[in-house]
């Protein structure tokens, strides 16, 4: 019963974090700030949903597979985000910062 509750909480929290990250990806002004919103989906959303599924499965090989998916995401998502941000930097995208003379001023619209 308690396991059910924890699983339900984790799954709902993960889904909410995914939606929040999606909203952030649409709202934020440039590619660097959007990568922070994508980071919410990659870490918080993914790990909480995998945790909720693992609580449903109990101590079986299914949980081991979920653990491997989590481990893989733990190592690959920061690497690909770093590669993307570095690529954007070398591709000539200037990050919007508050101190720059941009009229947008780095504030979400």
């Amino acid at each position: 019963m308690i396991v059910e509750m924890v699983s339900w909480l984790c799954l709902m929290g993960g889904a909410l974090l995914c939606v929040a990250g999606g909203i952030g990806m649409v709202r934020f002004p440039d590619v660097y700030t959007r990568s922070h919103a994508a980071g919410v989906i990659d870490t918080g959303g993914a790990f909480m949903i995998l945790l909720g599924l693992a609580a449903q499965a109990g101590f079986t090989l299914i949980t081991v597979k979920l653990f491997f998916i989590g481990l893989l995401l733990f190592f690959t998502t920061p690497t690909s985000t770093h590669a993307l941000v570095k690529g954007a930097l070398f591709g000539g995208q200037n990050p919007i910062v508050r101190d720059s003379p941009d009229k947008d001023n780095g504030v979400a619209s």
Partner: protein
Amino acid sequence: MMFAATMAGILVAMVLALLRGLLGPTVYDRILALNTFGTITVLAIAILGFLMGRPDFLDIALLYALINFVGTIAILKYLRYGDLSASSPDADGSKR
């Protein structure tokens, strides 16, 4: 019920990521949307396995996570060097 509700939230996040992929002014926004969409797809496949009572789907989710990573890196490398077999380090002496 629980899995269906989570699936609904994931589908909304998928639509938002696709929206950024369609809107994205630069190519990097589109690649970011693609990468995030892939991560959400991994979660969606995992939940689908539980929803349909077939946990074998987790193997497909694991493979999708691998292919998503390799694909993102390959696109970025092609974009930057125009050649997938390029191995030269960065000219400015920075690492990785």
